[in-house]
């Protein structure tokens, strides 16, 4: 693909690229893209936070921190929930807040035990709405077998919040000899997905002004501790807990973001098969309409597991026998090259790269 470079072209190529007025990475203010889970978010976390709090646990950058306290292994995690609208088909901000933190603990191999919840309430929030949110949290906590043991409440002026923000922090007990970490995927491992992707994100999007449409599915908001247990039980029965390498719940940024993180941390590649990835027709319709890719849409009740090939089929069966995993599939496998990248074999037999998101995925007309 070489063409002789003539003189004028050489002049162009010699221009100093550094004098470009266009960089948009170094925002002087925080922009929405910083919260989307993609490259902007990662940059923010690394440059602003990790750089100031350096310690080996933090630098692992897993969804939870595993701590040794007097010989007992504990998992510790925190998450904030700012979703709008606060009530949506299939759930609400309260259920998300409980399940989201329970899931972060569970996919790290911990038995979720205790939660703390901090609320920032906007002046003017109807008390009935708050009651509804907290009722929902109570039910979710009971279902997940966790206790809410401490909390905090603040109220901010009208306009300075968005009805309610919830931060939950969770503690779990690492009660099994798992070795789950994003850097453990190896060539030959299989990639399992527990079910239909994109339900939550599309449900939320369908409620957004300007993009409303009908027929969106419900959010898949759910606690995954039971599904995780089923997977680990099967691995244990097969003789080796460590053959489950890593599990993640693909929330904001979707399956693509989580798989890229694992590929990069493990310094391995991944090849997925588009035909194996389950997407509901309604989610497909919405994504086609808005020009979105389901691989990047948020989920709140799904998990991705990378497991050793010898137990993959057994683990898949165990997954499918659980109510939250009935539509589980093996969607691909880990390979050696290209290191750190996720590829996908498309419906028509071509190959594409499933890259990391930059900022928010936006509806497009092109």
């Amino acid at each position: 693909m070489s063409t002789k470079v003539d003189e004028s072209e050489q002049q162009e190529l010699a221009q100093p690229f550094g004098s470009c007025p266009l960089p948009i990475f170094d925002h002087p203010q925080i922009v929405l893209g910083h919260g989307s889970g993609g490259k902007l978010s990662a940059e923010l976390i690394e440059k602003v936070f990790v750089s100031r709090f350096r310690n080996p646990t933090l630098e692992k950058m897993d969804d939870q921190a595993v701590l040794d306290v007097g010989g007992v292994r504990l998992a510790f995690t925190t998450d904030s929930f700012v979703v709008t609208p606060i009530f949506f088909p299939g759930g609400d901000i309260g259920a998300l807040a409980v399940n989201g933190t329970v899931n972060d603990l569970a996919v790290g191999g911990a038995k979720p035990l205790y939660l703390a919840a901090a609320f920032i309430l906007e002046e003017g929030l109807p008390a009935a709405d708050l009651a509804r949110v907290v009722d929902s949290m109570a039910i979710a906590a009971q279902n997940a077998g966790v206790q809410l043991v401490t909390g905090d409440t603040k109220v901010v002026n009208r306009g300075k919040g968005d009805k309610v923000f919830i931060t939950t922090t969770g503690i779990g007990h690492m009660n099994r000899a798992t070795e789950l970490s994003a850097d453990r995927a190896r060539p030959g491992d299989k990639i399992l997905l527990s079910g239909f992707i994109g339900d939550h994100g599309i449900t939320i999007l369908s409620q957004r002004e300007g993009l409303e449409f009908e027929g969106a599915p419900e959010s898949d908001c759910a606690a995954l501790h039971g599904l995780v247990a089923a997977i680990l039980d099967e691995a244990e029965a097969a003789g080796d807990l460590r053959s489950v390498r890593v599990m993640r719940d693909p929330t904001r940024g979707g399956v693509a973001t989580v798989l890229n993180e694992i590929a990069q941390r493990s310094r391995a590649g991944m090849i997925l098969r588009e035909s194996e990835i389950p997407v509901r027709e309604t989610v497909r319709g919405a994504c086609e309409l808005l020009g979105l890719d389901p691989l990047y849409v948020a989920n709140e009740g799904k998990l991705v597991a990378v497991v050793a090939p010898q137990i993959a089929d057994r683990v898949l069966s165990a997954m499918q026998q659980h109510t939250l995993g009935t539509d589980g599939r093996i969607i691909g496998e880990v390979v050696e090259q290209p290191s750190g990248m996720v590829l996908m074999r498309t419906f028509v037999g071509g190959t594409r790269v499933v890259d990391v998101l930059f900022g928010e995925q936006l509806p497009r007309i092109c």
Partner: protein
Amino acid sequence: MCLAIPGRVVETFLQNGMRMARVQFGGVTRDACLDYVPETTVGEYVLVHVGFAISRVDEKEAHRTYQALAELDQLTELEAPIVDEPSGGAA
């Protein structure tokens, strides 16, 4: 450019003086303006771009052309066997 997808018209109505339709895309439904394809009836498929139906799908033509595609290999079998690929790319 031009993300436009086909959807099925499930209802037509007037709104603010514009002819509108509820259009179904694989299970999700959204309204689209029908002023540019005013003769469209319920059950037909339209191509929708940014909330406007810009053309109708000619279902007979779709069927005919798709059949031709599906039957492609029957013609191929009658032809000569493959020759070697030409060497050297265009660039």
